[in-house]
């Protein structure tokens, strides 16, 4: 398929804790097309950043297995020098915490310029400066000339996030990964940054991976959504289908629509993502958070099942909820 930008196949990223490796991203496969926005949602600790860092190959001490192909070149096996040609140019990343992601001792202008300098040798010093001013304006910061000379600590969090976005889009990347670009910001600023990303989406024509734990953001921005839990994709579908027909109990808990046999219609699932060391590695990883579901509903080795075209769900336990829904619908009809 010519439209395919990124293809991830059986990606496993493991960290060493003590003497053993533990997978934070476990056998993830997905594709991203050009111009497509893929949302990745999941609670804290579900492995979203670990996945993003794997794609950029930014982990310093992790074991990465599987394949990550950007325009048909495998990033996992690429030499460092080749990788450095791609990073910041063909693929770029917006980071989670704008307060720490900029060098405190380097003027803003030079930090944006660096990525131009590394990938666009033809641009002279004047050209680079001009482009930097342009970028600062593009991300909606007034008085770019002044900001060019300033240091990170002189800017607010929202401004710094805009600078980080400017760095990321400086060389018109084909793949842009935004790792929770608004989590560290307050609500009004969050909305502004999302507006900015939405605007840029039209302008830069990049494939975007948008990581968030906010399904509202996903509904607005994404074409497709992957839901991650404990290092695995548990459900992936187009935005429309995922919101209309969420199947996996985890997805449904994120959407607040889990039926139970009890009285409370909207059962809120308790608990958190277990830590890497304590993660169950066999069976349905979500089983322990829905203890009222009979063990027989879970698969022994849960895999992704295609339930409708392009809509995949892991494990068979969602069927339990399907039957509950049916039962309730019938009850509604009766009463």
């Amino acid at each position: 398929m010519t439209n395919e930008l990124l293809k991830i196949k059986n990606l496993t990223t493991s960290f060493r804790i003590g003497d053993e490796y533990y997978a934070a991203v476990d056998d993830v496969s997905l594709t991203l097309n050009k111009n497509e926005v893929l949302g990745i949602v999941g609670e804290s600790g579900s492995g979203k950043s670990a996945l993003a860092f794997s794609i950029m190959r930014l982990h310093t001490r992790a074991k990465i297995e599987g394949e990550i192909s950007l325009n048909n070149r495998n990033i996992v096996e690429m030499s460092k020098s080749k990788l450095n040609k791609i990073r910041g140019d063909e693929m770029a990343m917006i980071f989670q915490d704008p307060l720490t992601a900029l060098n405190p001792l380097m003027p803003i202008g030079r930090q944006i310029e660096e990525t131009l300098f590394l990938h666009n040798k033809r641009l002279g010093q004047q050209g680079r400066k001009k482009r930097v001013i342009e970028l600062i304006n593009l991300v909606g910061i007034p008085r770019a000339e002044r900001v060019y000379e300033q240091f990170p600590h002189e800017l607010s969090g929202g401004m710094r996030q805009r600078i980080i976005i400017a760095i990321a889009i400086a060389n018109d990347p084909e793949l842009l990964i935004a790792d929770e670009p608004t989590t560290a910001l307050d609500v009004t600023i969050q909305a502004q940054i999302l507006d900015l990303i939405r605007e840029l989406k039209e302008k830069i024509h990049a494939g975007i991976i948008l990581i968030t734990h906010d399904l509202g953001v996903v509904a607005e921005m994404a074409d497709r959504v992957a839901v991650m839990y404990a290092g695995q994709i548990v459900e992936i579908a187009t935005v429309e289908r995922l919101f209309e027909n969420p199947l996996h109990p985890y997805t449904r808990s994120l959407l607040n629509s889990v039926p139970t046999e009890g009285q409370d219609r909207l059962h809120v699932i308790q608990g958190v993502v277990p830590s890497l060391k304590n993660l169950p590695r066999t069976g349905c990883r979500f089983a322990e958070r829905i203890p009222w579901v009979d063990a027989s509903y879970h698969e022994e080795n849960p895999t992704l099942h295609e339930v409708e075209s392009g809509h995949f769900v892991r494990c068979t336990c969602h069927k339990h909820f399907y039957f509950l829904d049916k039962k309730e619908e019938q009850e509604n009809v009766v009463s």
Partner: protein
Amino acid sequence: MWKFIIRRLLITFPQLVFLSVLVFIMAQMMPGDALTGLIDPTITAEALDLQRERLGLNNPWYIQYADWVSGLVQGDLGQSFRFKMDVTALISERVMNTILLSAVSLIFTYIIAIPLGIVSGRYNDSPLDSVITGYSYLGFATPIFIFALVMLWIFGFQLGWFPTSGSVAPGLESGTMEYYISKLYHALLPGLSIALISVVSTIQYLRSEIVDTKQKDFIVTARAKGASENRVYNKHIFRNSILPIAAFFGWEITSLISGTVFVESVFSYPGMGLLFLESIMQRDFSVVTSLVLLFGAASILGALLSDIILSIVDPRIRIK
């Protein structure tokens, strides 16, 4: 930046006043007074009292303090009873020697510490790092005067590469080229001895700064831009790690002082440190108090220097 520096200078002033009060109290508590060393046994008690009255030694303490400080400001540190000369004159040449020795050892310290600290921090937990860290432990554990003795014995007496005492070869005329070269030559071995020991704290400090900076988020940002590993170190990690070292510079002066005291006596190097030990031994108290005052002032000014350097290199302070 100027605002910061001026504010910093304003803090320094009361520090110096406090130091002078402390030293004054110390001087008052020393047995005897300015006349004790000068007296001729034939002088009568009355004549002595008259002299005391004349010199203001019977005045209340605050007047005496004021007199003492105004003397200080004019460069009058009193009389050395041992050398029967003005302390100021006695000290000034020693001070120059010690400054030379300190400068030499500072230069050695940085020449050794920066590369070793960088290697140790960049390749932390590698065999090379273990060797450097091992050296640091040895350095921490070795008393400087013992080490200086060993250095003197090997390079001074056994190999004969360096002079074994003094600060200049005898017979050279002050002001000639040979004279200055000889001065420098005499400072090399003691300076190196101090540096080899005092360097370990700077190495470890730099190492931990680098290890720390390496894990910062902005380093990830730099890598994500496609910067090579060398570029990441040269443009992002080192500058951020050297910063606290620059600030450490002034504090280094304090540790140098303690270094010179022992090393000067091992090398019979006529600096402030040697004079200090001798004066304590000889109960030449006016010299002791003067030197304490100078050492204290050097520490305070060193701290001041540290902060000023930091304010120049760190934009976070520069702006305020």
